[in-house]
């Protein structure tokens, strides 16, 4: 955890080692802690060798999809015909996720180093770090760190630009992010073409998450085998991952564990468990876009890509949202739906109209004016919103609704039958 609490003994501290250590933010402080050694080593290596090392480490994208990072890098054209770009997705906006923010706040040089190594590996001369508009403190820290690193000329021929978003969730979608960098409206693009063929400015582009790139220097420095050895369950999930735990929990914050770690230990041990007299009701394990888990599912769940999938959800971004027995699931899901309705880019019909309609139905149920058939309508509507659009924002809205109604149907019915008092929805 590192900040504000000290790390728990069960944590595997790799990325979060210097969280809470102000000196690590400075270039000199970072170098003193062994920083930029990996970059020096990588720049002396053949780009393909760097990629191979990352591929062997088993590192997978930490932004949500969990795509193998090294494999992604190999999608870039073998023969370089023009500029290549690297985009770093620091537009961390997934509700319940705040790990990238901490990486940028405390270890900005870790990200810069990882960015430069990745740029070298994909033979990009320019990298853009797209930072969420609301991240004022990370922005300041990153700006300072980049200036110091540039002054020390550590990046060789690689130029790193910071680009600040203007406050749209959808700009965290990789192609919307590229449009935004280009100065266009942040609308996701249809794929194909994939970014490795035509990304930002129509040139081959790789896009990686902050946490993914922050892990890269460790892999280069300590080797793929070391990273691969960090594995508690499935061999397909290696390394450590930050989990942002929030909600009805005693000690919210980021914890770093080796993949395969039990979710219940994170909740009950590292984060201090429920408030006194409260019990766990539900948990969203990977940011607001993934299916909700019940208490039983949560307590069985192992935190790696396969483990969470087996429990019926997705590892996603690692934003763990905890609900105790005081939580009103109907209200919580309405809030999520409203968020997606607000953030829909308005391109695809299902998303533009579906997210708003979902919200209206949810609000009506909460107001005590719902009907039983609304639940089937919500499920049918959610099905219609799944897998039919350009990006997955629409699916993300449907997911909590489907899992919510399926797993907590009685709470919905209580509002409809009048057993529960209506909630004023502002």
């Amino acid at each position, binding site marked *: 955890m590192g900040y504000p609490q000290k790390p728990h003994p069960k944590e595997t501290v790799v990325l979060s080692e210097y969280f809470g250590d102000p000196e690590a933010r400075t270039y000199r402080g970072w170098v003193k802690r062994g920083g930029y050694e990996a970059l020096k080593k990588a720049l002396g290596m053949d780009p393909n060798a760097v990629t191979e090392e990352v591929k062997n480490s088993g590192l997978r994208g930490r932004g949500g999809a969990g795509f193998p990072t090294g494999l992604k890098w190999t999608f870039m054209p073998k023969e370089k015909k023009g500029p290549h770009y690297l985009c770093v997705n620091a537009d961390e906006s997934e509700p319940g996720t705040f790990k990238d923010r901490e990486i940028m706040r405390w270890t900005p040089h870790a990200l810069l180093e990882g960015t430069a190594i990745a740029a070298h590996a994909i033979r990009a001369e320019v990298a853009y770090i797209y930072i969420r508009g609301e991240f004022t403190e990370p922005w300041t820290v990153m700006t300072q760190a980049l200036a110091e690193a540039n002054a020390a000329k550590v990046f060789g021929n690689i130029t790193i630009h910071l680009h600040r978003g203007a406050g749209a969730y959808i700009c965290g979608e990789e192609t919307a992010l590229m449009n935004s960098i280009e100065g266009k409206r942040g609308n996701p693009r*249809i794929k194909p073409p994939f970014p490795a063929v035509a990304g930002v400015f129509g040139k081959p582009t790789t896009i990686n998450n902050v946490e993914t790139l922050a892990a890269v220097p460790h892999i280069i420095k300590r080797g793929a085998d070391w990273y691969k050895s960090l594995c508690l369950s499935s061999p397909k999930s290696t390394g450590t991952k930050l989990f942002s735990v929030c909600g009805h929990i005693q000690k919210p914050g980021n914890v770093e564990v080796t993949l395969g770690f039990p979710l219940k230990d994170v909740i009950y041990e590292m984060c201090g468990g429920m408030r006194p007299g409260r019990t766990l009701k539900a948990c969203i394990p990977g940011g607001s876009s993934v299916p909700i888990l019940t208490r039983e599912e949560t307590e069985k769940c192992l935190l790696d890509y396969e483990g969470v999938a087996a429990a019926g959800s997705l590892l996603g971004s690692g934003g763990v949202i905890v609900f105790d027995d005081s939580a009103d699931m109907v209200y919580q899901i309405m809030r999520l739906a409203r968020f997606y309705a607000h953030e*829909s880019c308005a391109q*695809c*019909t299902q998303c*533009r*109209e579906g997210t708003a309609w979902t919200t209206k139905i949810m609000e009506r149920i909460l107001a005590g004016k719902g009907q039983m058939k609304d639940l089937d309508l919500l499920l049918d509507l959610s099905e219609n919103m799944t897998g*039919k659009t350009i990006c997955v924002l629409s699916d993300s809205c449907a997911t909590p609704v489907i899992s919510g109604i399926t797993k907590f149907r009685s709470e919905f019915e209580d509002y409809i039958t009048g057993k529960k008092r209506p909630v004023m929805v502002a």
Partner: protein
Amino acid sequence: MADLVNLTIDEVQVSVPKGTLVIEAAKQAGVLVPHYCYHPGLPVAGVCRMCLVEIEKTPKLQIACATQVAEGMVVKTRSGQAKSGRTGVLELLLINHPLDCPICDQAGECELQDFTFQEGRPSTRYSPTYPKRFNPVEDFGPDVLYVPNRCILCTRCVRFMEDVAKEPVLNVSERGDRAFIGVHPDAQLDHPWSGNVVDLCPVGSLLSKDFLHKARAWELDKTASVCTGCSQGCNVTLDLRDDTVVRIRPRANVEVNRYFICDHGRGHYRWMNRGDRVEAPLVKDGTDLRAVDWDEALDRVRTILQGAGGSAVALVSPKASTEGLYYARKLLARFNWTGAFQVVMGEEAPLSGVPNLALRAERAPNGKGAELLGYSRDYAAALKAAEQAAVVLVIDDPETAVKTSGQVIYLGTAAPASLNASIILPMASMVEEDGTYVNRDGRVQRYFQARGTPAMARPAWWVLGQLTDAAPESASAAFDVMAGDVDAFRGMSYATLGLTGQRTGAGAGVPA
């Protein structure tokens, strides 16, 4: 020949060039996949999600407009899964739609109506107590109104202005279900080609002020025609209500105007409805004009022509048909004749995104045809020559005051400016006859008769043809006679010109 890809669409096998989109391949299989945002003249957006189809071995439904064909692909547009996907889109498109078809200009030619009728839900599941999205009607520019409540945000208009007109004054403003089409605060939708957004709009959201509430779509008679606004020769459809032209819309011709016409051409129909037409042949007796029948009128012309010798001058309108102009030349062949046409000039206005497409400065739909038939652009010289000529034949140029010592034969749609003509013959306008124009690039294009002629007016080729030895029976026959006689048209036939025309010199056996 490009590489062909074989695929099956709704159990029909088709072979299409590599890179073809499924939605276009489907057309070849006789299948129209319902769609809104896709338009062949615009970049693919893939946003309406209406063209969802099932493709075997692909887990999710795919949009036909953004999916390229692949060898052995099996596409099912009518499977249960595909249909329910599209029904879902239609339901969502309608939840915020005002359903004000009875007062909407688009009704009857609305794709939202058509596809809802075809595969939409019979009733809504949207609660009547939810308010629908409401935004006031907005004035976008000289001829375009935006009714945001009907908008389905397909973004065709935005893409047209951005990628075709290259004047990006429209955008999608706001997000989510609050989104609407916005116009730049310091600009107007006043590009000379901006009227196309009205045609492109698949619903009644962008409306032409000129056509507003003029007619219901089902009252219109549609005729394939050619625009008379300039020498570009854009293919158009004339929409007539009760024999009155009320609207001109583009007709697709990828060789000439693709899917677009300019606003000048769009509005260039008022002359077609003018009321001051010549309705009967008029002969001059002393100072009076007397209405006569065609036999007498034609006899009178024959007498004039037989009695005259020396030189003759033809002053013709570049709006006259190629066939009429040919027969005029044939009639005057035995004289020492000169012919000329007068071209009105205006401003040129290109459509940047389409090569070789512009509102041309020369507002002469058949100037090239006249030229190919030996008429000159030197109108002033012809007017001078007319002074000494024995016969002056004027074809539909009522603004010309001819000074001559000879006889003036006037063939026109409206009465001439100065009444020094010996005889006035009523002529059908291009709306009332079949014929051809030759555009500036030498493309011969047919236009079709959209309504009957007023009273006794007849097409120019008929009138002048009657005065020759072998009168043609139709525009088609007149054209074929010309093709056998004039080098520029040799090898062409009226029948094979089709709906989109042919370049002169493209026919078989043309001498270089």
